[in-house]
């Protein structure tokens, strides 16, 4: 598994110049409202992860990866672990940038930053938990269309929900409860969602011929 993760890391590294430039542009253009980085950084890392799928497909890597491990589960697991690693690194990065900028601007609110980062992280984890099984079922090229559909659907559904829930948001005890225990709930929920997603991905992948 280590070898397969390293392969993806090296692939990302081979694009390192582009990544730094893009992150730098992010930082400059949105320096006023630095909180959007909380979502943009991890989202960007997901794009990098999806790119590794494209490389794998283009280079017909999967067939070889299966011979390297003789275990399709490990191939899937490596991809999930790699993705989570990337997400955590970029979320931490976003967290740090937020704190630094908050310090400079004198409006540092660690609690808010933490919950923002965690919420962003959770949103993206849900997104990839839906995406990865689709990628393993249909391949990355076809899955791209689904990415768009899911993005629109999520925006629409969430937008609709928020508009309707908004009225009694602050008084709603469930929301309050969620908000208080966010730091516990989100990791647990994430793990459950990711694990189910992993099982489905494996089911698709195990039936595939390369």
């Amino acid at each position, binding site marked *: 598994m280590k*070898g397969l993760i390293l*392969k993806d890391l090296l692939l990302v590294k081979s694009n390192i110049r582009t990544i730094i430039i893009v992150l730098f542009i992010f930082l400059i253009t949105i320096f006023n409202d630095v909180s959007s980085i909380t979502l943009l950084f991890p989202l960007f890392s997901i794009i990098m992860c999806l790119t590794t799928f494209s490389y794998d497909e283009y*280079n*017909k890597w999967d067939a*070889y990866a*299966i*011979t390297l491990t*003789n275990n399709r589960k490990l191939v899937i697991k490596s991809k999930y672990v790699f993705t989570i690693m990337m997400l955590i690194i970029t979320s931490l990065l976003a967290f740090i940038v937020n704190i630094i900028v908050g310090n400079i601007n004198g409006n540092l609110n660690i609690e808010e930053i933490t919950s923002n980062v965690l919420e962003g992280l959770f949103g993206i984890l849900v997104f990839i938990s839906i995406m990865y099984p689709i990628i393993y079922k249909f391949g990355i090229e076809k899955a791209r269309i689904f990415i768009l559909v899911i993005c629109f659907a999520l925006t629409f559904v969430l937008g609709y929900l928020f508009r309707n829930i908004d009225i009694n948001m602050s008084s709603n005890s469930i929301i309050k409860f969620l908000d208080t225990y966010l730091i516990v709930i989100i990791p647990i929920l994430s793990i459950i969602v990711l694990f189910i997603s992993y099982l489905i991905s494996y089911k698709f992948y195990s039936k595939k011929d390369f």
Partner: protein
Amino acid sequence: MNNKIEIKNLNKNYDDFQLKNINLDIPCGYITGLIGENGAGKTTLIKSILNIINYDSGDIKINGEDKKENIGVVLDNMFFPELLNANDIGKIMKNVYKTWDMNLYSKYLSDFKLTTNKQVKTFSKGMRKKLEIAVALSHKPSILILDEPTSGLDPIVRDEILDIFLDFIQDENNTILLSTHITSDLEKIADYITFIDNGSLVLNDYKDNILDDFGILKVDKDDFKNIDSKDIIKYKKNKYSYDILVKSREKLKKKYNKYVIDKPTLDEIMVIYIKGVK
């Protein structure tokens, strides 16, 4: 005899192609060459052995040690990430195989004159094949499963690589299964020949048995009727003559002492078998 790979009643159905009931043992300590035309099922068979495809029925057993650690693989199409270089691939493999030998890898790379810091995508087809072979050998496997390892290589490099295979097989615990279109390579190094046509196993024997037993009987159009039809495996019509594939060459030489019966090459056997009629 000690079998390294045992394949029993293997079936795999695609929409337009079937691998039909393959029974095959790959003996330990020998080089087995897999031949057949494009689309005959060589790659399907190899991919079944490696679990890259899910076969429909049958059983494939690889005897002995840990399957993953002890098999070195070259697949039919290129498979290394193109953006990486040979150094990167070495680092990856070091984390994949417990038995990975970095010094051996470096030695192969320099023997094959491969640059270590250039992206794989800048490599020619032959260079990529060499890299794949270097990787397949560098974790010191006991089984090599190679799908057309020498295609795209010039005769000199091919010769070098065949020597490496011969060297590898000196250890009687090692086994090679390779498919190829370059049957002259097999005439040089293979011990066994397995011939697949249209998804079925046609022939599986010692190479020397095959080359000593089969013969090509060449007769004129008018003499063709003199040949006993039960002696004919298959025949191919040329402009003025017939090429007839026969078995028991030495016996038939006496029976048809008027005609010439040549020792065939693997290519000739393959061509008459596939293109000939009965």
